[in-house]
């Protein structure tokens, strides 16, 4: 027993003096737990995880307005009828039209748009699947959740906010398939509908127009097989793609491993410090700036090769459409490699030992990979978190790859991502150069 205690004591003493192990053992799990809790643990709270939806009402009937109003009251949806007003803009912004809504989805502003067609009010739903007017959902299926969520909410809203239309439609179906209602049944039904309409109006006025406050209810379309509301979902971006999500995962995994590779390879500076070659190099004609630029070039080449291997593998095995996106791929891969390489140099110049570098780089790389969107898409995050995750440079890289392979945006529209990544790279390089001063003559 005392030998076990002796071994335990030695292990605890080792742990006490090993800050890296302490970080990996206690801080990293807590940091990760916090990130996942922030992303997935707050969906029941007010104001978080709303799905932005652009809505276009081409019908402008009383039913369509009521339907839209009920959708807007849903706490899980952020229904937008018009673009946000720019600062200082006085006139009311123009309402979205089908074309501008499609443009917004294609441009990545939202993942879904709802088009309520003309004639919706006349036949908003169908129990039989034939007579209802079909809604159109324009979707970007790189976010597979938003279209599903919207579809469910459409069914739910129809049931909870438009019972009158539902009974009317149900009665018509009954009349058609059950051999017709008697005149007495029809009269009673009309009276019942009038009473329901009156109650609805009264309730609506009392609740300030809120038709639904049950934010926890999920889509109920499943109860009606195809759903009460007939919805055509149009996948704007992924229709012609054989493996639509492969590019997303190739970029996500690729960027995360570029971060790991850059921080690991940047550590050669610390190896050189330990072996004495750094001293010898700096006593030659090589200056610290030259040395860092040489290391940067090496790291960029390493990262770029890593990305090429990853995407070529994706193209050969998973039918990723690399060959038609080569220019965009290279632009994003080079910019990403520059940013990740500079990040690697910062870590290497900030740490004093390999062990320290291993701990800190793992901690930081895993955190920024999680928050930046390498592990799960950023659209799963609350809106606020999606915004501030842009302070992590890898989120720009992932957005860029998404724009190239998924949205197929022209190269000229990659400038925000390219600019951000080059800016980060320059900033990191300047910081790394400052930190490297400790290696210059003391």
């Amino acid at each position, binding site marked *: 027993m005392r030998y076990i205690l002796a071994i335990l004591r030695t292990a605890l003493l080792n742990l006490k003096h090993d800050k890296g192990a302490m970080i990996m053992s206690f801080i990293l799990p807590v940091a990760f737990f916090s990130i996942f809790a922030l992303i997935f643990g707050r969906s029941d709270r007010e104001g978080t995880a709303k799905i932005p939806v652009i809505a276009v009402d081409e019908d402008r009937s009383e039913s369509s307005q009521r339907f839209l109003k009920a959708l807007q009251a849903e706490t899980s949806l952020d229904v937008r009828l018009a673009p946000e007003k720019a600062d200082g803009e006085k006139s009311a912004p123009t309402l979205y039209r089908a074309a501008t809504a499609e443009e917004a989805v294609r441009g990545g502003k939202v993942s879904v748009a709802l088009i309520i067609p003309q004639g919706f009010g006349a036949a908003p739903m169908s129990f039989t699947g034939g007579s209802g007017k079909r809604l159109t959902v324009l979707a970007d299926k790189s976010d597979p959740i938003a279209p599903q969520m919207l579809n469910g909410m459409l069914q739910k809203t129809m049931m909870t906010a438009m019972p009158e239309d539902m009974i009317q439609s149900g009665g018509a179906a009954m009349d058609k398939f059950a051999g017709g209602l008697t005149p007495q049944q029809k009269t009673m039904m009309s009276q019942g509908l009038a009473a329901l309409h009156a109650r609805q109006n009264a309730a609506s006025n009392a609740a300030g127009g809120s038709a639904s406050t049950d934010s926890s209810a999920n889509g109920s379309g499943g109860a009606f097989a195809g759903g009460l509301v007939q919805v055509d979902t149009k996948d704007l971006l992924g229709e012609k793609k054989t493996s639509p999500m492969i590019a997303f995962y190739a970029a996500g995994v690729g960027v995360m491993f570029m971060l790991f590779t850059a921080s690991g390879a940047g550590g050669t500076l610390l190896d050189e410090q330990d*072996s*004495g070659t750094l*001293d*010898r*190099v*700096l*006593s*030659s004609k090589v200056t610290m700036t030259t040395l860092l630029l040489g290391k940067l070039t090496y790291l960029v080449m390493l990262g770029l090769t890593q990305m090429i291997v990853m995407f070529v593998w994706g193209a050969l095995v998973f039918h990723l459409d690399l060959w038609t996106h080569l220019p965009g791929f290279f632009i994003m891969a080079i910019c990403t490699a520059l940013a990740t390489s500079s990040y690697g140099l910062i870590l290497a110049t900030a740490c004093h030992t390999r062990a320290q570098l291993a701990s800190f780089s793992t901690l930081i790389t895993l955190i920024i990979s999680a928050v930046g969107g390498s592990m799960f898409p950023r659209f799963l995050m609350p809106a606020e978190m999606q915004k501030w995750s842009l302070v992590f440079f890898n989120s720009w890289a992932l957005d860029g790859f998404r724009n190239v392979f998924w949205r197929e945006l022209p190269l000229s529209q990659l400038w925000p991502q390219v600019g951000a990544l080059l800016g980060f790279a320059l900033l990191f390089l300047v910081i790394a150069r400052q930190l490297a001063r400790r290696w210059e*003559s003391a």
Partner: protein
Amino acid sequence: MVGSRSVSTQWVVEAVGLRKLYGSLVALDGVSLQLREGEILGLLGPNGAGKTTLVRSLVGRVKPDAGELKLFGVEAGEREQQRLGWVPQELAIYPKLTARDNLSAFGRYQGLQGAALEAAIARGLQWASLQDRAGDIAGTFSGGMKRRLNLAAGVIHQPRVVLMDEPTVGVDPQSRDHIFTMIEALRTEGVSIIYTTHYLEEAERFCDRIAVIDHGKVIAEGTKDELVRRYLGAMTRITITCGEDVPAQIAERLGASASVSGNLLQVTAVDPAHDVGNLLTMLRDAGVGVRDLALKAPSLEDVFLHLTGRGLRE
């Protein structure tokens, strides 16, 4: 010591009053030393005396807080410091590269390219006797081979002044002999060397002059003979091993000039022929038998002990 070479009177290294502090620790406390063209200067001192800091100051890796440094007759700047060769104490080589690639890398860092680089690599491999292992990974080499490669990397650009910091530390006697041959070759070429070592026999073998450094100061400087004469005079150490413990009354009679430890008696004598006779008579009168007797002229180690109060490896 080799006196057959001609040593110029022109200084290639002149350090005056170099001072370096790390917080409250005084690493260099006004060090002054000079190296002539073609000369080998031994730098001796116990651990922590400031030898490595001094060498790093000369090569530009440490910036002294005060003092003046001239190299090749002009105030030292980056350009002059880059002309120096430096063999650091650490094995400053790339362990995952081959011997040839190591020399190629350090040659390029020194600005060599093309035919000049190839010639330098070939010369370095030959000098270090590593031609047969040129394509082998340096990390797989023996300690002695790594040391030789470390030396070759330090002089790849054919510097006229080389700073060597413990170039033979941790190698076996055979490898050390090999390294001695390499240093002899440099000396033959007239290269000036500052040679830091823990091994007094190396200092005695190679160095034209010796500087003893302790607590960040040069406390003695000169040829071996000058140092011995200056600090120990012509004294000879007499060591007598007796058949039994040396009686206390003999130790008392000899006083401070003698040290007694069990059956071992050591005495420092100015006139050994006279003193040996007296000692033997004294022991015979006390009934103490003598098993062994040795005479030793004062060495550099004695000077070092005398000056620092410590052994060189302490």
